[in-house]
């Protein structure tokens, strides 16, 4: 019984979603919530309120009590007026997409938005998103902005598509809920989850093929050189920077410039997901070490290089690697 009801509700919700999408289309990254896309329905409390007013109406008729009628109609009027306030509180709010970052699988992806009030009245009690702990914006003064974050849990690598999100409010009396759906068609990449460091030995192959001498570590300080884009922040000589204002990089003997190769073929062909996970770990480690590295996947080779851009390119390639499509 319950299952049927839930399925019916699910079907209905899908229909409504499809209808709204047809109606609204895909939004640009910066939208003003026009009146026509704001929907409003009574909350459960609102339905109970309607019942209360109706009961009072019956009571007033029964007792032929004009003061009862007065209270009944006043409450009805307050209910109706609160529809306007609820709608007006949301209409013409601006929502701007403010960026997101790639995450590793298992982490929570965060999409930042800026809510802006360009109107001359105060916005109250806006609620952003529909998760269990939605970001709230208790008060937004005229001209003010506030950053809100939509959090999405990740469970698979690859492209993460941000589901349609909602901005809503129940202001002023909680009898009605006005909301709007925003679908900016936002995506973010989810890297494979890096394997834990301890599991490296158990996999058999190390996946490392060096073309130069084996790196011995970061122990021996060898000198300073000027910063180049892509150098890891931890190797910036912060003390020197603070003293002289020059951005210098400490160089170590261990951190040789000879690149490390992270090769798909070098990993034991157990489970491709686990392989990708191990490779992601290697990429992260190599980047942390400040070492140049190259990535070989069936059908594509990246690097050798180092730096954040290269790191992203490698991790993205791992995230989007599709064995079936490549082999």
């Amino acid at each position, binding site marked *: 019984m319950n299952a049927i009801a839930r399925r019916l509700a699910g079907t209905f919700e899908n229909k409504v979603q499809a209808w709204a999408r047809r109606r609204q289309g895909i939004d640009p990254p910066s939208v003003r919530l026009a009146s026509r896309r704001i929907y409003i329905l009574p909350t459960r409390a609102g339905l109970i309120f309607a019942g209360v007013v109706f009961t009072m109406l019956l009571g007033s008729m029964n007792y032929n009590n004009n003061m009862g009628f007065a209270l009944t109609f006043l409450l009805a009027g307050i209910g109706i007026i609160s529809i306007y306030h609820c709608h007006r509180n949301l209409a013409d709010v601006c929502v701007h997409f403010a960026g997101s970052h790639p995450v590793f699988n298992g982490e929570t992806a965060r999409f930042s938005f800026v809510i802006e009030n360009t109107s001359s009245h105060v916005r109250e009690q806006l609620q952003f998103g529909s998760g269990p702990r939605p970001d709230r914006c208790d008060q937004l003064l005229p001209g003010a902005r506030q950053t809100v974050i939509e959090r999405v*849990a990740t469970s698979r690598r690859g492209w993460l598509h941000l589901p349609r999100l909602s901005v809503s409010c129940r202001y002023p009396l909680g009898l009605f809920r006005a909301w709007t759906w925003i679908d900016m068609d936002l995506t973010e990449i989810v890297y494979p989850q890096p394997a834990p460091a301890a599991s490296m030995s158990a996999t058999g192959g190390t996946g490392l093929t060096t073309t130069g001498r084996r790196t011995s570590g970061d122990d021996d300080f060898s000198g300073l050189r000027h910063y180049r884009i892509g150098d890891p922040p931890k190797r910036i000589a912060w003390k020197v920077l603070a003293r002289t204002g020059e951005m210098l990089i400490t160089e170590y003997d261990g951190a040789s410039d000879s690149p490390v190769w992270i090769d798909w073929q070098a990993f034991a062909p157990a489970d491709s997901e686990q392989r990708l996970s191990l490779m992601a770990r290697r990429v992260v480690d190599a980047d942390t070490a400040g070492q140049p590295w190259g990535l070989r996947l069936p059908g594509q080779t990246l690097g050798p290089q180092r730096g954040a851009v290269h790191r992203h390119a490698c991790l993205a390639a791992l995230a989007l690697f599709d064995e079936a499509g490549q082999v």
Partner: protein
Amino acid sequence: MIGKRRKAVPATTERRSETPEASTGQIIWLIATIAVTGAPHALHVHPWVSLVVIAILTWRLVAALKRRPLPRPWVRVSLTLLGFAGVLVSYQQLSGLSAGAALLLVMAAMKLLETRGHRDRAIVIFICYFLLFTTFLRAQEIWSLAWLVIGTVVATAALFQVARTGRVVPAPVAVTQAARLLLQALPIALLLFLLFPRIPGPFWSLPRASDQAASGLSDELSPGDIGELALSDKVAFRVRFEGPAPDPADMYWRGPVMSRFDGRRWSQRQSTPRPRAAGAAQPDTTEIAYELTLEPHGNKWLLALETPIRWDMPGAGLSGTDQLLAERDIDRRLSWRGTSTLGGPRPRYERPDALGAARQVPVVNNPRSAELGRTLRRAAGSDAAFLDALLAYFAGRDFAYTLRPPTLGANPVDEFLFETRRGFCGHYASAFTLLARAGGVPTRVVTGYQGGEKNPLGDYWIVRQSDAHAWSEAWLDGRWVRYDPTASVAPDRIEYGFSEAMGRRAEITRDLLARNPAFMRLAMSWDALNAGWNRWVLGFGPEAQSSILRFIGFRQPAIEHLVITMSIAATLLLLLIGISQRRGARMKPDALTAAYLRLCRRTGEATRARRPSEGPGEYLAACCAQRPDLAAELQRLVGLYIGLRYDGTGDASTRQEFIDGVRAFRPQRRLHPEPKNGR
């Protein structure tokens, strides 16, 4: 690159628990609302209910302040059941007014122990709205309007607070918000009040409030038993005459007629016979039209002015004793229009058994009175002369009118006539009727009200319970003729009305203040206000709605017309509200910014739109590169703008120069169409 696009899983599928536990501020608001809306009921319900509710409110307040946990569900449920059982046992029923109020109070207090979600908190407020509603079943006086406003504002402010997530706003802000909502709701409420079709009840039985107004009249009259006539200033009804008012001495408002006498007590002859229509009036007398607003008294008496000939009450009619009766008991304030004539009814047929009953003289007591009646009849030549002689008898002896007569013994009329000779209208009417019957003339006692007090401020007359009166009616020449023996004894009582006559005699214990003219004026204003309230607000009903419709232009008003009118008016009103809400929604940029934005728009049409990140200087450079022909003017204008906006140079004149310059700046569109692959 082949990407896998798929829906992400929402962080959690659980959607409830959007609203956390109530904050302390919200709990305080809930408690305050229950206290305010429950206060008028506190004295009407059983004391234990008030005590239990106060105890729960106090405990809940402490729990909220000290962040103590709330009772477990089973404790809550058993407490609630216990409360319901208590109300049931105390009141034996759950439908009465006090029982209902007690139940609501208990429910509100118990619900306060469960405030997890927004809905729980809202329900507490909804119960409070009901508590407010119940207040009006007890009293609908003019002050109840103030109570309506106060109660609604407090409860709505509380609803505003409990709907908030995060902290509550300061009390004045919440109250202002609620008052604003109420003001904005007022037009809608007014429209509904005026035009919402009133389907007359009752749908279920009416619980009678225990303090229902009692009438100064009753079914029986037993003057010998009354030691002191309690005076009540309570209003019995108010009358507005259409046209000149009759002399107060002629205002006899007819109530129950009593023709059965057991020697001590007068009573109505039989339970009300089927009402009949009016007999025709004497053709030569003037008709007096009036509108009578009756306070509820729980009987069918309409208290028409003698003698009624027309009335607009459906179902009303004259009883066998010419008393105008409504179809059912009058439990609410009621207005009706009637026309009467002062000339008395035409001769008509009276049933022999009625006349026989009006002749009966009890043989068990009052022998001296009976003897006196017979003697006087023998002395008089005709029935009419006999009745006049009776009136003269009262006027000639040392009879006195008093409200504190001595109580009378086994032969009340004898004792009154021959010993005490002190009494009020009931004594005189009773004695007169008995004497007339002893003389063989069919006579009966009529009770009702006599006279009235004109309110100079409201152009209407007030008839109070203290104006209750009793007189006699004798069957003479085929019709009932009124004889008022009290008038022979105390002419002032009839001529000036009760209160004034008593004021002169200074016999009754009226407040000294009442004789102060300023106070009287104040009292009269207050009564005029109440009369207006009763007439226009409480008396508003289907009849008034019909006249509104007639005013609009419907000739034969019906409910459908009401629905149509209401729908159209409501639609217009809602549109109007919508428009007024939309206005001023956008933040208006100041004149300088507006001019700059206009400049950018016009330049944008000629070159390219300004990117949101571009400042004036940057955009200017880009535009000048693209359109050298505009460069000079653009540079001048943007220079002015930068000076005004950022450098703080420039004054009102440069400001105007900039605004005018922008207004005049109308660049032509692109001179050459841009190549497709350009830029």
